[in-house]
């Protein structure tokens, strides 16, 4: 996750409080989803941005996860996300993000 995005998230946490935020990822691969999810939970694993060694512990989901899809108007979801849902490996991405959530919960 680039440093600019990390800073935006950090600013949002300081302004609104972490309990009032959910991070919604749109990353296109399981690898990128795992890194992004780790960044906003236990800290930037590349140590390159402002979230290095910063444990925000934010709640994180990916737009392709089933529980997210279920919460959105089906027509709108299809219009905005449908093509990518057909294109990307949704289950693998969902598994990667779920793993990051589980890692946070088990600590």
């Amino acid at each position, binding site marked *: 996750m680039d440093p600019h995005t990390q800073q935006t998230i950090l600013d949002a946490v300081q302004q609104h409080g972490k309990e009032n935020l959910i991070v919604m990822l749109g990353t296109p691969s399981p690898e990128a989803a795992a890194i992004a999810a780790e960044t906003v939970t236990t800290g930037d694993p590349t140590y390159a941005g402002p979230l290095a060694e910063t444990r925000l512990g934010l709640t994180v989901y990916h737009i392709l996860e089933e529980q997210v899809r279920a919460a959105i108007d089906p027509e709108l979801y299809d219009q905005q996300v*449908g*093509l990518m849902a057909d*294109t990307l490996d949704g289950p693998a991405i969902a598994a990667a993000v779920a793993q990051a959530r589980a890692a946070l919960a088990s600590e």
Partner: protein
Amino acid sequence: MAKPVLIAAAAALAHAPGLIALGSKPAREIARDPSVAARIHANLRGFDAAVGYAPNQAFIGSVHPRAMGPRPHFNRILDGGQRFGPDGEIMPETEFLGLMALADQFKLIRLSPQLAQSSAEALMRHPLHDFFDPGKLRSAIGDPQVEVSRGAIPLHVTDTGIAGSLAAGHHEDTNLMAHVLAENLACKASGALALAHLLKLHDLDPASIDYVIGCSEEAVGDRYQRGGGNLGKAIAEMAGCVEASGADVKNFCAAPVPAIVIAASLVAAGVFRRVAVVGGGSLPKLGMKFEGHLKNSMPILEDSLGAVAALIGEDDGRSPVIRLDAIGRHRVKSGSSAEAIMDALVTAPLDQIGLKITSIDDYATELHNPELTEPQGSGNVPERNYRMLAAMAVRQKLIAREEIGRFVADHGMPGFAPTQGHVASAFCYLAHARRGLTDGGADRIMMMAKGSLFLGMMTGQSDGMSFILERNRG
């Protein structure tokens, strides 16, 4: 209106592992931790490995990307892989440093006598020696060690010391600092190499080129105009195109596609008869994802500069036609979702001339080699694009969902380009496309490119453009 055609295309790689330390990401990491330099050095691959690398052979046209064989490619040598291919070559670093010194008209590059001599001797034997006059390398001989002690940057380091250096062009102008000029000169030299190959391979008189449009990534300028540009004309001069003027088209990674559309329009309008489009290599992107390669015990594969040249001219009855009546463009109002971009670049232009997604034989898009991107978590970029196209075909009821895999295999191709954004953006496929539409069995090939404008922080927009190449029916 004259029908513009793709007369010729060529491609060249410069294998330059010694320049990786000057790449943007490696340079930053080395500044942070000097021990990174040794780790990079220990994981470089030799010239023979770079020549035998299947994606590099695909780049110079020896093998079609679909015939590269199974991955991984980096740990095997492709049978019969040679330095020179049908569309160009893979140049070794010693020669390329000589070419950079020949590109430098301000004597900022200094080579040791040994390096200058071995480079000159090799370039004398090169099929393009007439273009570059390697004898002039004598005037680049100096003492790089002393130059570096005076503030120049090392350009080439061997076991016995610094064999090449590059001094700043101005002591205060940050746009003329040595590392910036290294990027510009590497871009100019590799671009000129691709253009010279194009002229030689297709037996074209350099003086027959009217205009050269540069679409490289380097902006080139000084403190009063950072993006002054016109590498196009600098490259034209180096390749002996004495009748040509030139200019640059900038559009992040997408630049080559609008450059070709503009070139084709100039020919169609009768302004010029022959317009070359040239993109030199991107030094800042060498070693961009080296950490992923080190992490996965792979050699650092982003060790080569990629350059492409194309010639657009009047209809010759044989060369593929550029369909100016079906140019896809991402409009300001198009929207930024992946679907909106694909609609603008693919569906809209096809609709304009009554064709469908399945009417196109090959799609050339972001053809980044996944062996370069996957280890760093960036995924398989071309496959993602092709799956998206296939998903669009499903939504338009042109294919069944079960046929997505077959669509990707038939209409797409594995990525084979180095992560040199503009070169990977369809541009690298031009020579293959021309072959497929003349000697091969293809009838229509779409070239499309996308550019991340938002990276420059002037807009949140991205951009993109596409055109269709069609078999010439005479």
